[in-house]
């Protein structure tokens, strides 16, 4: 839950999300200086919804660029507002603090694996939100211009690099750590490969209880079951040191947009299927604020794990 009493830095006179009208718009009059929790809930759920939409744009047919751009702009807008409110900062701090020690082991292992990301070609789909966007236009860059971008983004995936791409909000790849596909591998990525790699990764996961736990949180995350399954651990100074050079600027959507290599050619139903093996998938759209810590947990995993 966002700490109560967080004050809005700027008053937005008209700015409230227009959500489906059951409860009506939240009461955030221009004069109110307190961030209304229902407003932030609505905003939060809108953000989650948008990210899921971006993520699910991986189809066999090229996704609609206009739609992706509009959704990405919406996410950016929410992000900017949250940054203004200061809630974004709070979230990223809580995120760093919420990392539990066991995950660190996973993280370390993953870090090692990450460095030879080149070997991960054709691995499981990374259902990165905007990869659909990437799919449409990034590929062209690689093919036509022999783009440096591809290499840059690959290196940015290594967690030790300060360029780590934001993955901040991505209901990520269920802790499938090294799952960023190389852009060059685009052409090879077919659905069969995906399924294989999904299977292999899930097998890996089963063998690592920590990883599995992380996955189940991730799985839940994606479907918005907002219950805390594990209490938030106390901040770990060792972890903080590990992540001290993590630059919060890469929570910025822009890096997210570029950081991602493409394509999972995974249909929306594949995503659902692959997640079903993990956590209960109660699709709940009522986001309780308690879920946020959970979110932060797994966002951290993504950053580390990818």
């Amino acid at each position: 839950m966002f700490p109560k009493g967080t004050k809005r830095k700027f008053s937005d006179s008209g700015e409230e999300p227009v959500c489906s009208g059951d409860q009506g718009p939240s009461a955030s009059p221009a004069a109110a200086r307190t961030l209304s929790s229902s407003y932030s809930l609505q905003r939060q759920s809108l953000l989650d919804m948008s990210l899921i939409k971006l993520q699910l744009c991986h189809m066999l047919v090229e996704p609609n660029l206009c739609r992706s751009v509009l959704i990405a702009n919406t996410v950016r807008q929410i992000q900017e507002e949250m940054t203004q409110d200061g809630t974004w900062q709070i979230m990223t701090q809580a995120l760093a603090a919420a990392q539990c020690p066991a995950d660190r082991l996973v993280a370390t292992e993953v870090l090692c694996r990450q460095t030879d990301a080149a070997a991960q070609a054709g691995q499981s789909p990374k259902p990165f939100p905007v990869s659909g966007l990437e799919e449409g236009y990034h590929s062209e860059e690689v093919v036509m211009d022999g783009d440096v971008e591809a290499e840059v983004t690959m290196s940015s995936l290594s967690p030790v690099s300060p360029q780590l791409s934001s993955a901040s909000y991505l209901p990520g790849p269920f802790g499938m750590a090294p799952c960023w596909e190389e852009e060059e591998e685009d052409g090879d990525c077919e659905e069969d490969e995906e399924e294989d790699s999904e299977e292999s990764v899930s097998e890996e996961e089963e063998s690592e209880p920590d990883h599995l736990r992380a996955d189940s949180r991730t799985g839940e995350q994606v479907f918005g079951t907002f219950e805390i399954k594990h209490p938030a651990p106390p901040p770990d100074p060792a972890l903080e040191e590990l992540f001290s050079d993590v630059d919060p600027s890469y929570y910025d959507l822009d890096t997210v947009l570029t950081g991602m290599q493409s394509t999972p050619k995974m249909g929306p139903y594949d995503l659902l299927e692959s997640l079903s093996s993990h956590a209960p998938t109660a699709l709940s759209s009522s986001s309780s604020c308690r879920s946020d810590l959970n979110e932060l947990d797994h966002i951290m995993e993504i950053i580390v794990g990818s």
Partner: protein
Amino acid sequence: MEEESDTRKINNSFLRDHNYATEADIISTVEFNSTGELLATGDKGGRVVVFQREQESKTQPHRRGEYNVYSTFQSHEPEFDYLKSLEIEEKINKIKWLPQQNAAYFLLSTNDKTVKLWKISERDKRPEGYNLKDEDGRFRDPSTITSLRVPVLQPMDLMVEATARRVFSNAHTYHINSISVNSDLQTFISTDDLRVNLWNLEITDRSFNIVDIKPANMEELTEVITSAEFHPQQCHTFAYSSSKGSIRLCDMRQAALCDKHCKYFEEPEDPSTRSFFSEIISSISDVKFSHNGRYLMTRDYLTVKVWDLQMENKPLETYQVHDYLRGKLCSLYENDCIFDKFECVWNGSDSVIMTGSYNNFFRMFDRNTKRDVTLEASRENSKPRAILKPRKVCVGGKRRKDEISVDSLDFSKKILHTTWHPHENIIAVAATNNLYIFQDKVN
């Protein structure tokens, strides 16, 4: 046609002429040709079906010419882009007719990547009486030929053939959303999300890029082109609309690359209605010049706007299509309906504009009387040849007998594509996989 009689007809007298149910496929575009004699529809399966109006019969003057199927052909096939491992849909996004110059008809049809020029021609005679061939085509032994004759053309059953005369391909990285034929009848533009390309109808292996809004760094992409159209009379002028709710008018004489617009139309945002969805609902889904070339019409999610080309800072007229959806934007965002791209059309005299909505409703607005009407394209709710009854959506409070409440609207039944006959009050409306043709009542 007088304005007054126009109005009366529009509000009261549209009757359902006939409707055609195409088997499987969702209709993705409809377009009358420049005389209104032909009506083309394109569908999701890549097929084009052309209807032709019957000659008016003197014995049945109360029946205006009906539209019957004239030609059906497969315009585009599904393809696979091996480079990106993606399918290219065969869905026909747009059809544009070329004005008729000889006995054959020409149209341009496009899917996401490729534009094709089709020639539709009739054959109702065939030559008979060859010297060297039999009637069934077998060659005759020359030694058996003792006399020569001249082959003559004999009538045969009418055959309508469609042949692809040009294929304009490999010019678009992104999905083509519109095509527009120039008034010079020699060139046309094809538009995708980031670029506008100019083609000569005769040349298929190259095109000129005249607008490119692709940023050097793709992560900075925040705006895409949603539609473009040539001015109906000025062959050097075209307009394109964006996902941010702006329209740019460009003059091709100014520079080879028309990145600098000569006019920029945008209405400043109303801060009182601002929400997270403001940008999405301001995205323009269609832009159409009026027939007289003085106005532009744009369609965004909730409104239709008419712009005077001389006034850039705000539209001349704004019409609310379905403002009752404003309170439902979150749900519509969730189910993706907020991204639906509705088209809009002018009538022949530019006095009435029409656009579609949900629940198989479509709306007409009379620009002169400011009256509007909501009609429904459905078999259940209208009998053939019956006058359409105006519909009403109830926005709250007590619902009257024939009204429909906002919550009962069927959002899967959307009318995205409509077209209006260039001279008469005949409209064609595509409701998913059904085509409806409505004509106004003949007195």
